[in-house]
């Protein structure tokens, strides 16, 4: 009986450890994709807005001096 209880505890702890690893990997992946990302369809409007600012001359390349 004790051996069975020990097995159950071991299996439980193992499952917790695996669960933690899966959770941590998922958390890191999400964090990574929050920080770095490829511009996609969801970014298109922002991208278009910035490109339009360049096209219209509203934005000029930075050429030196103090940052705005």
């Amino acid at each position: 009986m004790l051996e069975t209880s020990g097995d159950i505890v071991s299996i439980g702890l193992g499952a917790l450890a695996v669960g933690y690893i899966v959770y941590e990997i998922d958390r890191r992946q999400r964090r990574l994709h929050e920080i770095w990302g490829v511009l996609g369809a969801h970014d298109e409007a922002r991208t278009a807005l910035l490109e339009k600012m360049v096209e219209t001359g509203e934005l000029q390349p930075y050429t030196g001096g103090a940052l705005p």
Partner: protein
Amino acid sequence: METRDRIGPSQDGPVKPPRFRIFIVDSGWNSAARRVLHDNFELLRQLQRESPIYFLGRERSVELMRIYPALVGKDPIIRVHIIDRGKQRRNAGFHGFRLHLGLLRTSEDALLALQNFAKFVGTHRDSANLEADMRAKLRREGLQGALEIVLQGEAHGVSI
């Protein structure tokens, strides 16, 4: 102005049109990431001198945040837009990648991310598919992170 301080293609060799446009959005939060960006901006500019850098000042950045409030707290944001030299079509879709530097809370993490950004753009400048390179790098980083967790039982800061 000296040649080395110029934005745009180097005057030393054949002049190539820039492949990227780099946009920096910074609404002015008093953050470690902002300080790191400002402290190292000149170096970043020199490293990316082939690409024009468009710095949205506080006013324009705040306007952008008002249109897209989900961006609040993620700035400084660095966006790299790939200029489609072949097509130059507005409807061809936009390509590139972005770095939400403001999500990094410590100056060490922000500096590492900025260095990795400069390295990635520099080493993939002539890549046929920069986005695929970025996706591959993110996958590798994800796997590396998983290995770190399994082998060391701890998670370090996120960077590529």
